[in-house]
């Protein structure tokens, strides 16, 4: 021992930092009853980690009910945060560390196999001294069982410590836990305090101060009572990064696209995009119109677009169904329109808060008659932003409806992406008020591309009556069968004209090989992570992710031909071959598989699940391995979830 040590004051020795275990990534969950603020805690943790330069991806754990009964297995509300040294593209497989506000919500997560074997659990211990002996018994029994199952359980006095600081500890626990977690992962306290100031920015200083105090108490408790610590090395990007969720990215995309009007009707899980737009759109001269219903929202947007201001309507499945007739009108009359569908589980009310990719056929084939529309699907948070700008541009250039298919997973997931640099090219040209040349017709379709110049109200000489009836080039009602067919041909040709401008999608992994996984939308991160893992195992697996679902770019056929087997991975329903009545003749394939099969005449298999949760990379790996092992080139993959934990009868 040297002199320096002897000179160190005793209290500083006591507070000497625990050694932090360096790790490349960790998955953390904070779960509670609804309304206890676990999501805010997790979003803040993720934001702080992102500001430090960690890769992050957040996945909200949402019960279907707004206020499910307290302490219920099905009522778990919370958030999963995956933090890594590198860029993170999905929520990952199983959780390394959980903070649970009661043991019941924890049981739900354990039963759902969401925890890694041996995972660390930080559990609120107030139930140990609860006045109801049944609660105490349940708590004690659960802790015992968890320990027996190999989980490392730490009991934490969240309520007790928070009560020392605030009157309503239930409302303050989340910031205490934030402090605890920031301490555990060595996150910057200054950034944390800034984050707290940001989230409570609209409230007065006392609220911020009390939440900072809770945060600090949590950090101190962690420092004094926990015998482990982690460090996920972070590297600050040399570029400015934006940290938002998918719905906020969509709203920012609406602003950036130069659109003036968003017409909407409240629907989960799309509404938060409109909430944010409502808050900020008017500050940039736009407006959000909350219509009386979904149909009105769509018709309002169509009216605005017709008048020269391309508009957007934001909705989810049930609302999309209601808009179908109006969408058909926009198709028929060639009015540009952007429709954002943040998909949820269906049919009918389905699973409002849960992810599903079930609306692809409705988007591609929906509305009666032949109604060609453009369908694009963002596959990252960054894509959510740019897809709206692209959609607006295509809608106006081609006089078409462009459907943007996001989903409940992207809507709440946060992921950093490079800060967009605004470009004037994103904006629409000003409303055209130049006189229409004599003799020009409102639907003067180009014979090759089907494109025509749109006449807008206010343009002298352009007066005509637009109609949802079949019409000729002068917008006169078509009574002649050949005129009806000409309109159908021209509206269809516009898709081909757009298709000719699209680039083939990139292939992730190797250019050729044993198996190509094909996906669309929010599953890209999970699929590519699975491909990376499988290739590390030496397997010849690659993936292709489609952003354009309609039209599909050229080059896909050639890519498909370079792989021995092709299989789509989708978050929707497909019939399972292990079901007794299901065979090759009656099997209903997943939407993208069906579309690819019919277009390219390739025997494309599919694997899908509609469990209301993001698809996990581990599950994709398992499916791909089974596919490679199957000798007939057809999957014998079972649909039971992976995970080492048995469903216990607790």
């Amino acid at each position: 021992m040297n002199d320096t040590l002897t000179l160190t004051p005793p209290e500083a020795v006591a507070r000497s930092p625990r050694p932090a275990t360096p790790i490349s990534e960790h998955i953390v969950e904070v779960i509670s009853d609804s309304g206890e603020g676990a999501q805010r805690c997790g979003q803040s943790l993720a934001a702080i980690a992102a500001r430090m330069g960690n890769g992050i991806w957040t996945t909200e754990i949402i019960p279907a009910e707004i206020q499910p009964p307290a302490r219920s297995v099905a009522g778990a509300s919370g958030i999963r945060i995956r933090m890594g040294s590198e860029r993170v593209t999905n929520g990952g497989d199983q959780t390394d560390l959980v903070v649970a506000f009661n043991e019941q919500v924890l049981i739900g997560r354990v039963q759902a196999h969401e925890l890694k074997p041996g995972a660390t659990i930080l559990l609120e211990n107030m139930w140990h001294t609860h006045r109801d002996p049944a609660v105490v018994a349940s708590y004690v029994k659960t802790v015992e069982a968890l320990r027996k199952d190999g989980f490392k359980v730490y009991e934490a006095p969240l309520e007790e410590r928070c009560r020392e600081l605030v009157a309503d500890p239930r409302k303050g626990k989340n910031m205490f836990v934030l402090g605890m977690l920031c301490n555990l992962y060595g996150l910057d306290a200054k950034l944390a305090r800034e984050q707290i100031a940001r989230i409570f920015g609209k409230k007065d200083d006392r609220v911020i101060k009390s939440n900072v105090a809770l945060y600090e108490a949590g950090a101190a408790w962690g420092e004094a009572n926990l015998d482990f610590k982690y460090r996920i090395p972070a590297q600050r990007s040399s570029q400015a990064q934006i940290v938002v969720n998918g719905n906020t990215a969509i709203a920012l995309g609406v602003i950036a696209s130069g659109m003036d009007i968003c017409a909407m009707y409240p629907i989960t899980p799309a509404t938060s995009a409109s909430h944010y737009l409502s808050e900020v759109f008017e500050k940039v001269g736009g407006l959000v119109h909350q219509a009386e219903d979904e149909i009105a929202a769509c018709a309002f947007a169509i009216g605005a677009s017709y008048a020269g201001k391309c508009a957007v309507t934001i909705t989810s499945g049930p609302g999309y169904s209601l808009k179908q007739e109006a969408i058909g009108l926009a198709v028929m009359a060639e009015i540009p329109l952007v429709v954002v569908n943040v998909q949820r589980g269906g049919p009918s009310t389905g699973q409002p808060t849960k992810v599903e990719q079930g609306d692809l056929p409705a988007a591609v084939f929906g509305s009666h008659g032949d109604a060609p529309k453009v369908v694009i699907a963002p596959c990252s948070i960054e894509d959510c932003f740019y897809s709206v700008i692209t959609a607006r541009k295509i809608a106006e250039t081609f006089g078409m409806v462009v459907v943007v298919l996001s989903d409940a997973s992207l809507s709440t997931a946060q992921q950093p992406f490079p800060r967009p640099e605004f470009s004037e090219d994103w904006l629409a040209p000003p409303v055209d008020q130049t006189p229409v040349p004599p003799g020009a017709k409102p639907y003067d379709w180009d014979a090759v591309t089907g494109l025509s110049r749109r006449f807008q109200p206010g343009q002298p000489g352009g007066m005509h009556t637009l109609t949802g009836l079949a019409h000729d080039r002068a917008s006169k009602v078509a009574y002649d069968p050949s005129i009806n067919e000409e309109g159908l041909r021209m509206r269809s040709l516009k898709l081909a004209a757009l298709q000719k401008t699209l680039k083939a999608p990139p292939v992730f992994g190797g250019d050729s090989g044993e198996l190509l996984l094909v996906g669309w939308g929010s599953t890209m991160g999970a699929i590519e992570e699975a491909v990376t893992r499988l290739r590390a195992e030496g397997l010849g697996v690659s993936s292709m992710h489609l952003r354009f679902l309609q039209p599909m770019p050229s080059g896909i056929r050639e890519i498909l031909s370079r792989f021995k087997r092709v299989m789509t991975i989708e978050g929707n329903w497909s019939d399972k071959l292990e079901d007794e009545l299901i065979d090759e003749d009656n099997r209903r394939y997943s939407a993208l598989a069906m579309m690819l099969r019919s277009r390219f005449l390739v025997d494309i298999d599919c694997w899908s699940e509609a469990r209301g949760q993001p698809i996990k990379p581990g599950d994709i790996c398992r499916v791909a391995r089974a596919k490679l092992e199957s000798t007939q080139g057809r999957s014998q993959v079972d649909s039971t979830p992976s995970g080492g934990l048995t469903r216990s009868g607790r």
Partner: protein
Amino acid sequence: MSRSLSQCVIKLHEEHHDLEDYQGGVPRWCNGCGDNAILAAMQRLCSEENLAPENTVFVSGIGCSSRLPHYMKTYGFHGIHGRAFPVAEGIKMARPDLNVFVSTGDGDCCSIGAAHWIHAIRYNMNITVVLHDNHVYGLTKKQASPTSPKGLKSNTTPYGATLEPMNPLTVSLGVQGASFIAQGVDWVPEVLYDIMKAAFKHRGFSFVRIIQRCPEFMPKAFDPWLHDPQRTMLLTHANGLQLSPSLSVAYRNQREHDPIDIDRAREIASLDDPIPVGILYQNPDAPCYEDLRHAGQLRSPEYIRAGLNRELDKYTVWPDDEAQAQRAA
């Protein structure tokens, strides 16, 4: 939102428009259809108000009433059944400079479009609406509509309509935000024109229900009223309609009614015999939704860039050196 260029150009001479500047295709309505009277009044209104055809849009849904835009020579939007109101609202919100009219019917407005109708009154946007109410579905060949008289035998009510008819006036007057509610009949065209003119001049959502004959499916429905002028009650007031001397002689059943009086308006609206004709209610001070929402703002690319960057700033993680520069600034 950028204003149209035409607004900025100083016009050296006011363009004058004749009636034929508003006359589009030859109407394909039946002979004797009350829609013709409404169309004639509409074309006369546009001409006398000298509305620039390119700045005027007629929006409609589906039904006989909704063919009207095809017979105008302005811009027209013949959309889908029941949805004329939200389309018209979108147009007005995007372009408050345009004159927006809605032509709808008792099926289009009071049945399939009823939700939109109620809310359109509530929004009170500056739109002029004519409800062609012939008490029957004509285009689909005689089915009962919400305003069909009880007992009407139609293809869907072969034993007679079972329900009491809906009264579009009392419904409209029950909605918060109503600002102009009037009723006309096709058999008194002079008053019909005066009402439509007052409706157009009113700044707000002007709702004009026009009782019109359907010679094909309701040929005798209004005969008692046609044969007895006493059964048509004209509403007059210094703030409402004033009648010409000749009309006053023909229609002696007149009633003084101040359109600001909503209670009296509701009472009059409830009458079905005699049929009240005139302006039932007008509140010139009701705020318009497009004004409340500041529609038609000028937006330059620079404005949008600044706004977007302001929002992005909230979510930006700056690289270290830039962050310091940011804080220093």
